């Protein structure tokens, strides 16, 4: 009996994921209806609230536009993403779109797509390749600009103060493009005034737990810090918990600037715990469809398209919060 139970438990666990069977679409030449277009999208994974909002928006937008979308989740692994792109090539989709997990190592598979005459659109993240004919367009945020926006707010906020402003920076995953660029843009702007001093800069891996742990430790060695600049909302939310545990008031005793503007972050902004958020919009679906339609119709598209984005202060957050989608 005991054995039977364990075997049952065993077999229940082995129910595995079914693979997706895609039919072979013969790609015909000439203009197409939206209904005939097939787009393959290779997503990074579901590593953050931002990413899941991105996935949902793309899926919903394609459904609304009546364009068939083949979707795959690479679970943050480049090899999975390359496999997915190869399978889209064999299936003969009309356009391939993907957010590269890392910046390098794409030349071979992108060349295969080019040889098969399938245009590739990069969303949200860029690839580091010398040959920019391998993709038709890159749609996404300008991370350097985001860092600059964060820095500009800080300069404005402290323009009347002459004493030094001490800043802790919570970096994203080491080596990731948003982490490098957001640090660079921010540094460019605050470098103009020597009163701004980044006293510590550590990675929190874009996670809430990481942001919390780093802030806890850094607050002890730098108790007189004025500002925390976090490369995403989640680390900022972790920092809020660490600041509260230290008996201080986030947003007042220590000002917080973050990037992303996901719902939890916007809520904290509206509650006065965060002071400023630079938006990094995951809602790329509409713009992606425009590109896809243009590409399929044979029109030229811009090589670099920046996503429509804004910034939020506490007052703006209170207004924007009720209809925030993600």
């Amino acid at each position, binding site marked *: 009996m005991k054995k039977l139970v364990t075997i049952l438990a065993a077999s229940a666990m082995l129910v595995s994921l079914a693979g997706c069977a895609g039919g072979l679409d013969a790609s015909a030449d000439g203009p197409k209806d939206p209904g005939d277009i097939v787009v393959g999208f290779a997503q990074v994974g579901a590593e953050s609230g931002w990413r899941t909002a991105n996935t949902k928006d793309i899926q919903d937008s394609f459904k609304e536009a009546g364009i068939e979308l083949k979707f795959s989740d690479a*679970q943050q692994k480049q090899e999975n993403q390359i496999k997915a792109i190869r399978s889209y090539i064999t299936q003969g989709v009309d356009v391939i779109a993907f957010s590269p997990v890392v910046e390098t190592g794409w030349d071979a598979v992108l060349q295969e797509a080019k040889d098969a005459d399938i245009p590739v659109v990069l969303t949200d993240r860029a690839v580091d390749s010398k040959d920019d004919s391998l993709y038709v367009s890159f749609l996404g945020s300008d991370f350097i600009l985001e860092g600059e926006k964060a820095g500009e707010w800080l300069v404005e906020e402290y323009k009347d103060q002459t004493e030094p402003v001490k800043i802790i920076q919570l970096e994203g995953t*080491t080596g990731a493009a948003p982490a490098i660029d957001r640090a660079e843009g921010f540094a460019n702007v605050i470098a103009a005034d020597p009163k701004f001093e980044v006293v510590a*800069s*550590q990675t929190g891996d874009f996670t*809430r*737990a990481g942001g919390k742990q780093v802030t806890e*430790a850094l607050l*002890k*060695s730098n108790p007189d810090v004025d500002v925390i600049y976090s490369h995403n909302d989640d680390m900022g939310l972790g920092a809020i918990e660490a600041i509260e*545990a230290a008996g201080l008031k986030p947003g007042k005793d220590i000002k917080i600037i973050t990037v992303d503007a996901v719902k939890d972050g916007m809520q904290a902004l509206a509650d006065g715990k965060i002071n400023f958020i630079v938006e990094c919009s995951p809602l790329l679906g509409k713009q992606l469809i425009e590109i896809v339609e243009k590409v399929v119709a044979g029109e030229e598209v811009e090589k670099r398209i920046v996503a429509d984005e804004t910034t939020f202060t506490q007052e703006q957050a209170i207004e924007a919060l009720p209809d925030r989608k993600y």
Partner: protein
Amino acid sequence: MNRIFASRLFWPVVMLLALFIVNLIAFPGFFSIELKNEHLFGSLIDIVRNGAPTLIIAIGMTLVIATRGIDLSVGAICAIAGAVACSIILGSPDPGSVGTVVVAIVVAMVISLVLGVWNGFLVAVLGIQPIIATLILMTAGRGVAMLITEGQILTVNSPPFKVLGSGFLFGLPVATVIAVAIFVLAALLTRRTALGLLIESVGINPEASRQAGVRSRGLLFAVYTFCAFCAAVAGLILTSNQTAADANNTGLFIELDAILAVVIGGTSLMGGRYSLLGTLVGALVIQTLVTTVYTVGIPPIATMVFKAAVVTVVCLLQSPTTNAAFARWRTSLSSRTRKGVAA
């Protein structure tokens, strides 16, 4: 003197003290602990709180390793426990009630225990090598957690659940109190009874133990289930600390940290003799290492290399060859002084 040198705990403790000193130089207030909002506050408190999940898993891992096994699935079990608890709390009409949280925790624990039994079944009954047997759940488990969370990060806003990771009991972090309780439980159960001896005997020679009348199969089931229990507790603490179930990242690579803690503590991966106290020191070394990176301000790009260097030093110091060399050096040193005295 020689007994202290020969102790397996000597080098890990030296390493821990060395890290403390480095921290103290970089940040003079490192040892200060004060009372804030009716709870203790300080760097050392952070270390024992953030190190609690690794320590808890390392305790379970110590017993598994003592049977000459290994459990790679603990990280995945962390993710599953967190995912189950969060989806139950989110699905209930009243996420803030203590009852809901208790139900969520109990269900998460029960599911994790079943997974532990599954590991035990593969190892003890089917006789699959532990590294392969638990590898199955390590890879599949995150998938299971993803299915439970439907690929989303589930953020929970439930005060009673938050207590587990961020709360305080008599001024001490709840996570630390739980870790200490599990440590004491494991130590009493295995060292005040014959259980520990039996586990070691299975690790040294399973066949001989069986012929001597030790029920090795039952013992293996017990240690893998206990390890899964520890993993579930740690997973719930981690999830509560980040107030969200994250199927991809909760407990990621924690199995490696736990194994490292066990090894730094002087327990051999070949099974047999184990030291829970050593594991405790090992877990503290790992967490202090993390804190050191922040206080000293090591740039993130160099963090991995720094950690690797420290771990390499600990392992080198502990290796039997190095220890034998040290012993020879000490004897020659003492004989030389004796000669000096005679002359």
